[in-house]
């Protein structure tokens, strides 16, 4: 009975995104593309430029459409807006700060667990280390070892890190923006507070740059493993055994060049689209409340958004697992000639 009540309360708490609209905008029309832009796309938060030149708002070179405009507080409570021109621009965006938060949580989760397990690998320490050991054992025995024909040992570190990085990134995109919540609780404007800038709550893997980098490291591993295990013979050995020689000009570019690129592209888009699509559906469903401004739509909207939210949690786990599974499959298949 208590569990049912708590479950219902939990589902209602998942409707917290309603409070994303502040009270002063009641007369404006609902702007779904703007909401999607605010919640799903990347925005610059902190400046970091080496060797560039600041261009302030009143100057002639100020570019209003520059995506990285920052505000500077000079004396007398005046804020001047500026952006950089030239230089090596590495401004910190929302994905970067969320990635740092994910890394922090990864470190505080796994370093104590690793220490406890390394103290005595044969003893059962606690439920926490047991949980982590279970996941790692499953990954090792069912995912990496079968696909890598027993040569998986050099890849354990990278593949475990990859799985947990993608998993934590996906899950932290589902937690509502703690920065905005803390800003609201302490009375600041949640859209312009520094707490929101630090923990904006967006999905790190919902950005094509992040997924392209992860898929690019898989691509690097595919070629690297091929050359490491088969030497320079990897290049002719890409074509499977027993292919008649007239087919070689067609099959070799396909197997050696296009196949790894297609695999990396599929990995990129699969992770990116799975992470972004669920959020778009949730925002659209909750946006019905703002668009129709009627109480009748609320139960349907919240119910649908809760259901999609739970599906999104499942998809987060599945996508991390699929990425790791496919990486180990592709790397394992380039170890030996087929």
């Amino acid at each position, binding site marked *: 009975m208590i569990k049912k009540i708590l479950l219902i309360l939990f589902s209602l708490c998942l409707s917290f995104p309603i409070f994303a609209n502040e009270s002063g905008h009641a007369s404006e029309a609902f702007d779904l593309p703007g909401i999607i832009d605010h919640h799903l796309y990347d925005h610059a938060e902190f400046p970091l430029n080496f060797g560039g030149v600041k261009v302030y708002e009143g100057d002639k070179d100020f570019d209003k459409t520059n995506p990285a405009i920052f505000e500077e507080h000079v004396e007398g409570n005046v804020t001047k807006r500026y952006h950089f021109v030239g230089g090596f621009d590495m401004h910190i965006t929302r994905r970067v700060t969320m990635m740092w938060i994910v890394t922090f949580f990864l470190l505080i989760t796994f370093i104590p667990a690793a220490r406890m397990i390394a103290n005595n690998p044969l003893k059962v320490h606690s439920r926490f280390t047991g949980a982590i050991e279970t996941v790692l054992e499953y990954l090792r025995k069912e995912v990496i070892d079968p696909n890598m024909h027993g040569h998986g040992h050099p890849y354990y570190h990278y593949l475990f890190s990859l799985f947990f990085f993608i998993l934590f990134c996906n899950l932290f995109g589902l937690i509502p923006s703690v920065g905005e919540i803390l800003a609201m609780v302490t009375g600041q404007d949640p859209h312009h507070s520094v707490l929101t800038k630090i923990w904006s709550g967006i999905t790190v893997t919902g950005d094509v740059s992040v997924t392209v980098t992860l898929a690019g490291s898989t691509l690097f591993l595919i070629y690297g493993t091929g050359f490491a295990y088969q030497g320079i013979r990897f290049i002719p050995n890409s074509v499977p055994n027993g292919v008649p020689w007239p087919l070689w000009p067609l099959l070799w570019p396909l197997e050696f060049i296009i196949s790894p690129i297609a695999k990396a592209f*599929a990995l990129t*888009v699969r992770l990116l*689209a799975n992470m972004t699509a669920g959020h778009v559906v949730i925002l659209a469903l909750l946006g019905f409340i703002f668009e129709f401004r009627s109480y009748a739509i609320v139960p349907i909207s919240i119910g649908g958004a809760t259901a999609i939210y739970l599906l999104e949690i499942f998809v987060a786990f*599945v996508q991390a697992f699929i990425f790791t599974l496919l990486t180990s499959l592709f790397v394992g298949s380039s170890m030996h000639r087929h």
Partner: protein
Amino acid sequence: MDFGLGYIGVGIGAGLAILGAGLGIGRIGGQAVEGMSRQPEAAGKIQTAMLISAAFIEGAALFALVIAFQAGGVLNKELPNSLKAHTAVEQPAAQPK
């Protein structure tokens, strides 16, 4: 009119993509349940394989959805430009003779 057709195309594309995904995942689910009914002790392995296949098929459907989103974004970006062009052309035609 072109933009209306463009948006119709985006909608039909996304719908066809999810139609393909629904068919594929439905088939996988049906075959998996049938396999589990034939051999209940293999149910765990069949369930794992079913989830993995469903994730792949969903990934393929989402490729098409990403393209639909991109097309919608391009249409959204070009829409204000085309509206400006319309009003500039219609004004000379409204002048009385």
